């Protein structure tokens, strides 16, 4: 399992996860993924287009990431999962975090003001 980070121009962190997000895959990348979900108002994209498999251990990692980002007042999207991975996310109640489309469209969605945001 590989995890690479791209710091995008507009303060968005893009994490690309490639391989199987199973027990050993999670052990390999867990710390790195969660490290990049912290801080104030984090905007995080997790690209799952190269993720072939997600077990419940992988789902728990994604849930943890969503929770940490939410605690910081930020937003997280799961980008372009395969059909099989998308089914597992949907069955696990994570479909609301899913996004299909281009990275730029996903970034625009991340930056869109949400309910409860205070205008600056």
């Amino acid at each position, binding site marked *: 399992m590989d995890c690479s980070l791209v710091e995008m121009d507009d303060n968005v962190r893009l994490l690309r996860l490639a391989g*199987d997000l*199973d*027990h*050993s895959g999670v052990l390999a990348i867990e710390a790195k993924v969660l490290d990049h979900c912290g801080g104030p108002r984090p905007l995080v994209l997790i690209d799952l287009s190269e993720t072939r*498999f997600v*077990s*419940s*251990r992988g*789902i*728990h990692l994604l*849930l943890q990431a*969503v*929770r940490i980002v*939410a*605690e910081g007042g930020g937003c997280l999207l799961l980008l372009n999962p*395969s*059909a*099989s991975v998308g*089914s*597992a996310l949907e*069955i*696990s*109640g*994570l479909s*609301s*975090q899913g996004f299909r489309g281009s990275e730029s469209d996903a970034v625009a969605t991340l930056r869109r003001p949400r309910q409860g945001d205070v205008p600056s």
Partner: protein
Amino acid sequence: MEPVSSNFEIEVVNQPAALAPAMEQLSCWLDGRQVAPAAVYLAKLALEELVTNCIKFAYDDEAEHLIQLQIEITPGGMTLVVEDDGHPFNPLEQAEPDLDRPIEERPIGGLGLHLLRNLSDRMEYAWKGGRNRVTLHKKATA
């Protein structure tokens, strides 16, 4: 699915370190078969979830136990059986996770069996001869 019947069998020691090589062996075998992506996913999920549950919860002693995984692929679909000699445990009696709660408030646990129930076409459990036997079916067209 395969034009003819094809079988896979592996015994996994009840140690966490045994899971990764077993997954590697299963993935290699699946790569050489004509198997639908959904069936490949289910086979890997069954190995990870059911064997992990056995390793974590099935045994009180320090002895070595073997957990068996058998897969049969036919033109009609895939049948997968996991057997262990641990405590009786019926996965069909486990409560479904509460997915209506907000993500931030959801308790951890129960997702693995929930995934298996929903991604297979049928899931069965039997306790026979002092062994747990979980069987999953996936139709070729599903």
